[in-house]
């Protein structure tokens, strides 16, 4: 029987479907009887989707970016 600690360690593999059939069954059996782990796995799943949905619509162009971009453009023009 898996312990809660092992469920925590295997949770990403479970959600990414990277567990063997046997491990998956043991994982599910634990979830069936443990509401803390059910909540944890649900929290992790929400976290992963939140990370994937993090907005990346804006980029920051600061002085450092402009300086490197200028050097690169000058180098490109020499070629």
């Amino acid at each position: 029987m898996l312990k809660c600690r092992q469920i925590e360690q295997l949770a990403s593999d479970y959600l990414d479907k990277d567990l063997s059939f046997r491990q998956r069954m043991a994982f599910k059996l634990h979830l069936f009887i443990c509401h803390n782990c059910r909540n944890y796995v649900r929290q992790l799943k929400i976290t992963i989707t939140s990370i994937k949905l993090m907005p990346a619509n804006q980029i920051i162009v600061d002085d450092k970016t402009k300086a490197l971009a200028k050097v690169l453009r000058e180098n490109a023009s020499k070629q």
Partner: protein
Amino acid sequence: MTDKRDSHFYENDAALIDAMLEGDSTAFETAVALYHPRMVTIAKAIIGEAFAEEIAQDAWMSAIRSLSEFAGRSSLNTWLIQITANAAKTRLRREKRQVSLDENWQEKETADRFDHTGHWQEPVSQWELETPEAILANDQLSDIISKTFEQLPPQQQAVLSLYDLEGESMSEICNILDLSASNARVLLHRARSAIQQKIAQYQDND
């Protein structure tokens, strides 16, 4: 001075590259703003903080030299990451140094979550904000996620970024970062878990 721009100002990689080949300064600034932080993250993950910026800048120089030959077989992002990873690995061999990354990070925090029998110390509650949309709509939580991501150790940040944000396969990530599959999966889980714990702290205290 800092400007904020739309990351999709150029329609696709080809449009961005064409503009760069024409010497358009906005295109260079957009490319650097989009890709340089990712390249530094990859370099840090391979060789550590000290050389990362230099490696990323050298990688840009190589990329610019062969930009006109970029055939678009991969995305510009993947191409730049591969150039950076190769440069970092070459430098690592030259430096003949072992980079200590991520060791012991977060282990204490994880260990404290369980008792000696392996059960949760504290009950794990259901979150009040329990959809990703609700979480990201909360400015403070959105900020917590971004800040925790930025503070992750380099290898964790690189694996999370490549796997969850850019959708690279685990085998490609292992290849880029020179990691075993089991190490990469542990790093991915630690990174996700760090962010989950920060969200949980916020939701539990709210």
